[in-house]
C-alpha cells in the first residue's frame, strides 16, 4: 500500500503532536516500507532535524498557503497513494483533494482539543464528512469529534500516543538538576506542557494553588513547571503574588535530552487538565515511575488507563487535587507494568494492524463488496 501523509508540523518540531507524528511516521515506514511513504510537512527553516531515510519527505519550506497546496497536489500526483492520511484537521481540504486525485482512502488523525468542537475552517469541517477512517489518540477525542461531524467515518481507530520506554526510565533524583532549581530536600510536583494564553487547560493554575494549600498546611512541597509560552509571565506573576517565590520553579523549555531527568526529579506528576486530547507527558511521567494525577474529564484519563495507572481528579475540585497529591506523595516511585501497553512496540503493532485493516477495506471496496456500516 502506498501512503501519503500530510502534516501541519515538521517531524522535528516540538510538542505532543510532533512527537506523535514522528512515532506515527516511523511506524508507517515499518508497515509499508520507506519507499511507499510520502510525507509533506508544514515545516519551518529552524527545523534542521534529519529527514527519514528513503521517505519522500517535503518540508514545504517557505511555501505560503497556495505554494503549500501546490506542493501537496504535486506530491499527490507523484505518490499515487492508496491511502492519504491527514495529520491535522486544518489540512482536510488538501488531503481530500489529494485523496480524490488518487482515488485513495482518506484518513484523518484527531489529536485533541482542536477537534473537540467544529474548527473555524468551515470547508475543513464540511470535508471531515468525507473521511473514511478516523484515527484518534483517545476515545474521548474521537467521540468529541464525531459529535459534530456531518457524517460519521466508516472506521474509527483509537491509537494512543506512545512513549520511549528506553529513554524514559525510573531513576534517582538527579542531584545536579535538583541543585540547579533549588529542589533539594523537598517534595516536588511537576507539570510539563505548553503555557498558552489561548488554552489554559493544562492545569498549571490548579496545581499551583494546590501546592500553595499543601505548603500552608506544613508540607515541604515545591512545584516545577516545564515548558514555555505566552502564558508563562502570568503564571510567574501569580506565583509571586501567592508568595510562592522559590517554591514554584519555572524551568522553561527543556531539551529532549534532559527531559527524562526532569521527570525523575518529581515525586508526583500532576496534570488536572480539562482539554488534553491524550497527554503524552502523562505517559512519560509514568514511564519514569512517577506517580501521576490526571483528569477525570479529558483524554489524560485514558493515558492513566481509566485510573489504573494513576489518580483521577475533576480539575475544578480543589479538594480532590489536594487529596490526590497527598495520596500520591505517599506512594513509592517505580514503573507500573501497565505502562507497557503504551510502548513503541505496542504502538507499531497497532499501526500495522490498522494499515492491514485499511488494505482489507480497500480490497473489499474494489471487489464491489463495499458497505458503509456505521459502527
Amino acid at each position, binding site marked *: 500500500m502506498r501512503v501519503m501523509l500530510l502534516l501541519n508540523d515538521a517531524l522535528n518540531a516540538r510538542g505532543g503532536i510532533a512527537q506523535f507524528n514522528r512515532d506515527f511516521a516511523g511506524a508507517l515506514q515499518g508497515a509499508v516500507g520507506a519507499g511507499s511513504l510520502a510525507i509533506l510537512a508544514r515545516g519551518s527553516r529552524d527545523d534542521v532535524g534529519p529527514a527519514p531515510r528513503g521517505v519522500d519527505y517535503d518540508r514545504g519550506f517557505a511555501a505560503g498557503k497556495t505554494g503549500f497546496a501546490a506542493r501537496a497536489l504535486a506530491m499527490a500526483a507523484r505518490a499515487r497513494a492508496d491511502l492519504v492520511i491527514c495529520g491535522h484537521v486544518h489540512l482536510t481540504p488538501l488531503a481530500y483533494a489529494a485523496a480524490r486525485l488518487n482515488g485513495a482512502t482518506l484518513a484523518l488523525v484527531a489529536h485533541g482539543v482542536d477537534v473537540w468542537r467544529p474548527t473555524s475552517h468551515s470547508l475543513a469541517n464540511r470535508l471531515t464528512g468525507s473521511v473514511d477512517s478516523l484515527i484518534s489518540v483517545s476515545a474521548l477525542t474521537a467521540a468529541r469529534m464525531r459529535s459534530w461531524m456531518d457524517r460519521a467515518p466508516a472506521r474509527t481507530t483509537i491509537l494512543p500516543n506512545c512513549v520511549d520506554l528506553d529513554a524514559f526510565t525510573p531513576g534517582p533524583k538527579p542531584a545536579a538538576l535538583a541543585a540547579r532549581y533549588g529542589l533539594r530536600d523537598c517534595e516536588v510536583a511537576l507539570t510539563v506542557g505548553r503555557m498558552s494564553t489561548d488554552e489554559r487547560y493544562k492545569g498549571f493554575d490548579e496545581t499551583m494553588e494546590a501546592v500553595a494549600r499543601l505548603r500552608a498546611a506544613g508540607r515541604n512541597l515545591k512545584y516545577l513547571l516545564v515548558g514555555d509560552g505566552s502564558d508563562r509571565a502570568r503564571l510567574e506573576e501569580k506565583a509571586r503574588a501567592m508568595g510562592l517565590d522559590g517554591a514554584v520553579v519555572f524551568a522553561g523549555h527543556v531539551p529532549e535530552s534532559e527531559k527524562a531527568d526532569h521527570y525523575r526529579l518529581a515525586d508526583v506528576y500532576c496534570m488536572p487538565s*480539562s482539554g488534553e486530547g491524550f497527554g503524552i507527558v502523562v505517559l512519560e511521567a509514568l514511564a519514569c515511575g512517577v506517580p501521576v494525577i490526571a483528569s*477525570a*474529564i479529558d483524554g489524560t484519563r485514558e493515558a492513566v488507563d481509566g485510573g489504573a495507572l494513576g489518580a483521577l481528579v*475533576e480539575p*475544578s475540585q480543589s479538594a480532590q487535587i489536594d487529596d490526590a497529591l497527598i495520596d500520591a506523595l505517599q506512594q513509592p516511585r517505580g514503573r507500573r507494568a501497565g505502562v507497557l501497553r503504551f510502548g513503541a512496540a505496542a504502538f507499531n503493532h497497532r499501526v500495522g494492524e490498522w494499515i492491514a485493516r485499511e488494505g482489507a477495506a480497500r480490497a473489499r471496496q474494489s471487489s464491489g463488496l463495499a458497505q458503509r456500516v456505521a459502527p
Partner: protein
Amino acid sequence: MCGIAGVFSLDGQSVAAAEPIVAAINGSQRRRGPDGEGIWRAPGGDAVFGHRRLAIIDTRAEGAQPMRDATGRWTIVFNGEIYNYRALCRELENAGRRFETKSDTEVLINCIAEWGEAGLSRLIGMYAFALYDGLKRELWLARDPFGVKPLYYAIENGRLWFASQARALARAAPVDAKTDNAAAAGFFLHGYVPEPLTWWRGVRALSPGCSWRLRCGEAPAQAQAFFSLSALFAQAAPQPMQAQDLRAVLTESVQRHFVSDVPVGIFLSSGVDSIAIAALARDAACNFSTITLAFDDYRGERADEAPLAEAAADALGVRHDTVRLSQDDFLASIDDYFDQMDQPSTDGLNVFLVSRAAARAGLKVALSGLGGDELFGGYPSFADAPRIAALGRAMPLRAPLGAMAGRFGAPLARLFGLNHKTPYLLRYAGDIERAYFLRRCLRVFEELDATQWADGLARLKQEQTPEPPPSDISPHAQVAFLEMTRYMRNQPLRDADWASMAHSLELRVPFLDVALLRALAPAIISSAPPRKADLAAAAGPLAVAAWQRGKTGFATPVDRWIGGAEPGLMPWADRVAARFGVARTRAG
C-alpha cells in the same frame, strides 16, 4: 441517590461512540456518588447512560445502575428515592410483575412499564431519571413535582445530553458553554439563576413535575406536566385541617422519609420545622441522631442555634452533635464551597457546611426542615406581599407616582437610610406576583445597569416565563404557590442538592412530600391556612416551645464576614458571579 448522565439520539444516528464523553460527565459528577460507576450503551446505539452511585437502598451490587428490568426492555439511570416503593412493589407484584432486586430503582422502572405516565402520579419521592424503552426506542426524562432533584439537558447536533449538574454538562459535553447573559441578569436580580435557564447558554433545566418522552429519530416533542401545583390549588375544595389530621399526615411523611438501609440523621436547628420533624420521628419510633451547625460569631447571642437545639435533642433522648464554625473555618472552606457550586447562588453555604459535618460524622442520609416555611406560611412574604399588592390597589395615580418615585427616589432612600427597594414600592404594587418579586428579589430591574444588561434582560423576559399564581385563590395560597414555584425550587432546593451531594450526603425533605401536599392543599387555600403554630401543635410540646420562642429560620453570619458597601447579599452576589467569570458592572 447519585449522579446521572447520558446522551440520546434524536436524529437516529448511533451515539454509541459518545461513551467516552458520558464517562467524562460521570467524572465531573464524582462527588455525587463515590460508591460506584456504571456506563451502559443501548444495543442499537440509541443512547448511552452513565451513573455515579451513592448506595442508600439495597447497597449490594445488584442495586447498581444503569439498571435493566427483568424483561430487558427498559434501562434506567435514576437519582433520588422513591419513598413508597415497598407499597408500589406489592401492587406491581400483584399485577404480575417480577423483581430481581430489593431496590426502589427497579420499582420505578416497573411503575412506568405498568402504568405509563400515570405511574408518575403514584410515586412519592424525590427523583430525576432517564429511562430508555428499547421496544419503542424512546427516552423518558422526568423530575419530581417539587424539583428536589435536578435534571439538566442540552440539545446539540441531533443529540440530547443530560446530567444531574448543569456544570458537568457545560464542562464535559459538547454543548454551548458560553455564559447566558439572560441567566446572569436573572442572577443579579434574584440571587439565583431562574429555571429553565442555566448559567450556560446551551444547557436548560427540565421543569419539576414534568416528564419528557423523546423518540429516536424524531424531533423532540414538548415536555408534559404530570403534576401542577396551580391545578392542585385550583381544584381543591377549601377545608381547614384539624390538628390530629395534620399530625397524622405529617407523621406518615416523616416515616416514609426514614426508608433507608444506612443510618439517618436530622439537621436540627432551634426553629419549629426541624424540631417538629425530630419530635414526630421520635414519636413514630424512628431511629436517628441529630446534628446542629452553630457559629462562633453567634455564641451567647439569640441567633446561636446550639443551646436550644441541644436541649431539644436532650429532651428527645437522641444522640446529638453540635458543629461549631468560626470565621477562619468559613474562610478555609470557601474555595471548596465555590468549587462545588453548580450554578451561581447567594445561598447554600449553611447546607454545605452542615452536610460536611454530617458526612464527617458518618451519615449518608439526613432529613431537613426545608419546605416548612413554604407550606406553613413561615416567610415574611406571606404577610408583606399581599400588603404591598393591596397598597397599590387602594391608591389613585399609582402608576405616575410610582414611576416618579422609582426614578428619583433612590438617592433620597439612601440619604434617609431606607431600604433600597422602598422607592420602588409603588411600581411593584398592585399585583401579588410583582409585589412578591419586590419582597424576594436581590435588586429590582431598575437597579441593574440597563445599558450593560439590556440584551440579557430582554431575553430573560422572553425565555423565563414562570406560571403566574391562580388568581381565584386566597392571597396566602398565592404566596405559597409563588414561594414553592419561584424561590424554593430555584434556590433552597437547588442549593441543597449540590451542597449536600458535594459531601456525598443525601438530603431528604419530609415537608416536600407530594402526598402531604395533596392532603394539605385544601387547608392551604382555605380561610384558615395551617401556620407554624399549627405545625408546632401537631408535632407536640417540644415544637410548641420552639414556636413560642419565636425563632424562625436559620441564620449565618456570612453578611458580617464578607461585609460590603451595598445592602444585604449584593456584594456577595458579585463575588459569586466573579467566580463564574462575570462582572455585574463593566470595569472602569
